[in-house]
């Protein structure tokens, strides 16, 4: 595989984990896109039962402005504004994986629920080209530190993947290596576009 291998990083809201990995991978020159798999974009609010909810497609800019308006202090303190600021430098708005028509070689998900949703979606699509796509899940907790760490892991995995000549053949072993190396359990599945 080469740097032209297309990566998709999916988390639930396309805010934190996928964006951090997106940032790292694109900096390293990968062809990468990032997505959310949830129904809507959810951002922690003033209380655990009062999240800020947006539709996919609302730009990071707008969300940023909205949160500033709501409680600039709070969102500065918990790093969300900072995160949004980073996100708007990367792309315009959160995107939903299920709305995407692009075909990828590798889809990396950041939690099991997201993995399920991605698989379910891919599974429901007709296979038009019989083009294999590997869906790989690495569990990453949804906080800044873990996101940073996770992005490194994803970067490492991406490096391993593109260094591989025949990914379809070697993926099993490669993932086993990676798994034992990063000491996290990995889910993997082959789907077809």
């Amino acid at each position, binding site marked *: 595989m080469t740097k032209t291998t297309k990566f998709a990083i999916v988390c639930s809201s396309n805010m934190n984990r996928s964006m951090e990995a997106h940032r790292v991978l694109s900096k390293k020159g990968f062809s990468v896109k990032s997505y959310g798999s949830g129904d809507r974009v959810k951002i922690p609010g003033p209380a655990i039962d009062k999240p800020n909810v947006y539709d996919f497609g609302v730009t990071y800019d707008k969300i940023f402005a909205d949160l500033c308006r709501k409680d600039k202090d709070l969102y500065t303190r918990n790093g969300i504004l900072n995160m949004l600021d980073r996100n708007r430098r990367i792309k315009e708005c959160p995107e939903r994986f299920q709305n995407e028509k692009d075909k990828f070689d590798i889809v990396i998900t950041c939690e099991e629920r997201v993995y399920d949703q991605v698989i379910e979606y891919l599974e429901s699509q007709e296979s038009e080209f019989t083009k294999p796509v590997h869906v790989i899940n690495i569990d990453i907790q949804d906080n800044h530190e873990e996101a940073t760490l996770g992005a490194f892991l994803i970067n490492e995995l991406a490096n391993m993947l593109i260094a591989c000549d025949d990914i379809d053949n070697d993926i099993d072993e490669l993932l086993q290596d990676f798994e034992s190396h990063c000491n996290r359990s990995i889910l*993997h599945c082959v789907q077809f576009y």
Partner: protein
Amino acid sequence: MDIKQNIKDPKEQIVEFLNQAVLAKTTDEKLTCLTRVQDLILHHGPELLDSFLDEVLAFQNDRNQEIRRVIVGFLEEACKSEPDVFPKVAVNISFLLRDEAVTVQKRVIQALTHLYPVVLRWLSKAKNITKEMSSAWDWLVRMKGEVIKWLDHDNDGVRTLTNKFYEMVIICQTYRDEESTSKESEFSLDAIPPALKILKPRKLEDEANKLMADLIKFHGSMHISSANLLACMGTLSLIARARPMFMGQVISAMEMLHANLPPTLTKSQVSSVRKHLKLQLLNLLKHPTAIDYLTNITTLLTDLGATQSEVEKCMPKPSDIQRRKQRVPPTPKRTKPDFDDDDDEFLAPKPKAKRAVDPIDYTQKFVKERLSPHVAAEMVIKAMVRLPDSMPPHFSSSYTPIAAAGTEGQIHHVARLLAAQLTAAGLGIDPPKDTDKNLDIWEEDDDDMKSTVSSFIEVDSKKSSLSHLVPAGGIPQAPSKTLKSMKLSEITKPLSAEAKTKMVSGSIIRMYRGEKMLLNVGASNLRNTLVAKMSSLFPDMMHDSLIAFISEDLRIRLDVALSWLYELYSTIMGFFTYASPSSRAFDAYNNVFGRIAGTLIVRNDLKDRDQLLTRLYLEAPMLPEGSVDFLRRQAMSEQCSQAAIDLLKQLVIYRPGRQINYFNALLELCTARKSEVKSQALSAVMGLYEKGEMQQVTEDYAVMYLNFLSLKEPPELVIGDEEGEEPTNQWNEQLAKNCLFLFSALLERDHSRIHELAKIFANAVPDVKRTILKNLDVPLKNMDMESPQLFKLLETCPEGTETFITKVLHVVTERVHPSPVLVEKVREAYKERAADVRFLIPILGSIPKFEILNILPKLVKLTQAALKEVFSRLLTNPIDGLSGPLTPVELLVNLHTIDASKCDVKSLMKSITLCVEDTNTFTSEVIAIVINQLVEQPIMPTLLMRTILQALSLHPKLTGFVLNILQKLLVKQVWKNKVLWEGFIKCCEKTQPQSFSILLQLSPSQIGHVLTMCPSIREPMYSHVMQFPDSQRAHIPNSVVMMLYGAPVDEALQMKDEQYSYEVKTEAHEILEEATNLQSQSYEYDSELTVPGEEAPPGT
């Protein structure tokens, strides 16, 4: 390179791009150009395709595989939009299928997967099958045949895509039914017109069924890779949904999979697979046909951990279920006649919807009917034996409790699972060929039945216990295909010895290395045992590596070492049935023990080396012969003598079985050359002795060595003890000390042993005696002055032990005043038995003065050193430093007045000299008093003048005093005593010229004598007289002057003094000579006190 040239005609553009592609230097450029060409061609219709096909195809031999892939893509797209092209490119595709690059091959499979229905449809729609078409079809069939074989290709990716190809072929070559979920546009056998000559639906369908069976077999194969399995599951599920007729097969395949996950999968792969399986089942559940398999699917889902709500969400509506159940089995949809190519025989419509009777179904039914609680319990009990001891981790992670145990549904499910197992193992019951026959035929034949059932239960229990009770995820399992009993020996070849060794050592080494992992699990004990067991089974090959392994981290791995030793010990003792006790095991044990101890001992860097060594020695099942010797040697070495000695001591205490061995080693160390080692060993021995351990042995040993001392020559045992020593057959201090060492320690604790020592002393050679005396201080330092042992010694006083007793007395009285009782005892002993004055020395300070004066002559005879000691004891008290029983004056006077009959002159001279030379005690004043007192004695002592002369040379300021004395001597008529007279003359010679006036008072004959004795003073005396004024000179007799002046001396002498004999002269001369030369003389006092110095007879 500008590729965006504005050329309007697509043809020209294509030409341009193709040219650029040919000239392009990089792959990327080439790719871009070709993609553009593809776009242009496909968008502008078939005529362009025709004209440029060959040009594009020229790239199919490009060296770059990416380019070739693009070409495949181009061909695929071309055929899709213009199936007519296919015949032209079929050869090319077939060529590319055999490409050397796997990526290209994969791309071709991908293309074929999509071309297959395209071509089928194209053929189906054709009005006339041309030659071209049939040849194209032939090509396709040939390629299909090739791809189909690739289900067991080496490459995982190829297999994955082959899977998809199967899917497409199966779907295309089967009939749709009303419940098919796939798109209507999808190709199916329904689309093939019956009249088509080259496509025969029945053949195609048969092939599809066969492919389906292959696919299911692939799905259930043991060594399928995770990625393949995931893809295959997806494929099967898709087929089941598109072709519900396969639903049953697919569901049983999934049940099989669930029960028999491939053993090669890792833990996380298992979870991926289970997850995927769950997803696929949920997808199937949504399908209307699934209603028939509702219980199967839901039970499976529950087993996979799906929640109730998840299941319910996908469940068909109850109304649908109701409706479906009432519905008659679907009637065969296809009623079209099937024509055969060769004959026009009309074939009766075949009931398509009737599902093939699945062997699993059949077996299941069989099992279910017999699965009574009793049989179930029987199976569980039989299987119990084969369960692993502890729950495998993957079991607990994937196990979900059985929610509905005992219900009809669950029994059904268990039966199904068993049936799946049985079928997989090749033990399933094949459905009878005649499906019309009721299954109950089994019931009819009772006897037959019973035997079959029992055999099945037997097999069941075996099967389930072997592996299937434990869900897959790690334990390899290989169900045998047939009932035929397998003999391992028949199908295996014996390994070569080399390979065996390699494998054994490899596995053991891996076991060693698994240390950390096992520590976490807490199984390290088991592992230790296992490693030890393996190692002891293969002693020769494993020693080196295991010892190396253990040495790496002795702290942690000592346990392994100990287990190993125990293992070997058990072998030696014959505790095992698999290994017979042999001397080899014994050697192995000794070897292992020795090597571990050896490695341990050199690890000075290890902080707790000593503890580890102690553990090794104390915990090992037995200690080899050499191990004690090893410790003994270590004790001699620099680094770890203390540790080794401590260890020996502990061994004596904690390993009582052979404690005598260890103790002997300790005892031997007590006679080691190195004093440090010796004292450590001794303290260990004495520590044990005081604890009451081995007392008798210690004593015997000490006495044995003590007895050596009475021998004339040291015995072998004592000499040849240590390396690097010159063997000698003479006692020396070192040897004697070694023999005495242990006994001294005992003596210190028990003074009654002193008699034994005394006895030995009496018989010992002088060197040994000296050593004994030297080493008495320490053991006796605590001896009580009034110890009965001491008294007993004094009372018995064996012959030859006088010096010994004296030494003992010395030691005892060293720091304290001798007690009256002791003094009494000693005096008693002196008087009654020994009569050796040396006895009295230690108690001199406590003896009355008169007694001292009595024994003084005897004391004087002692050696110079002893004499010194005696004098100092007499003059000062050794303990408090106060004055002793005698003053210096008393001592010196008494020395002078000793009766010559009691003591020889030489000893007296010696002792007086000793006193006088001690100018600190015997100051000039003391000397003056003494001389005065002596001069006043009625009989002046013989040695008086000698002492005066000595005093004169030591204290020159006494000259005046001496002149006075000389004057006094004149008065006392000194010339009458020849010795004194000689001394007088000497004295005058010394004190000239002051003494001249005294000399001149003598008579002329006496002066003549003086001049004869001492001619050297004549000249000075003459000049002295000459200086006199005349009046004074007149008083001097003429004869004297004459004598002073010259020759007539002889005449005067002959006339006057003839009483001096020659002998006397010599005698007196000798004494005086000695006195004058005192300062420069070095004395040699031999030990013999009695010098026969006969007194000269007093004149004639």
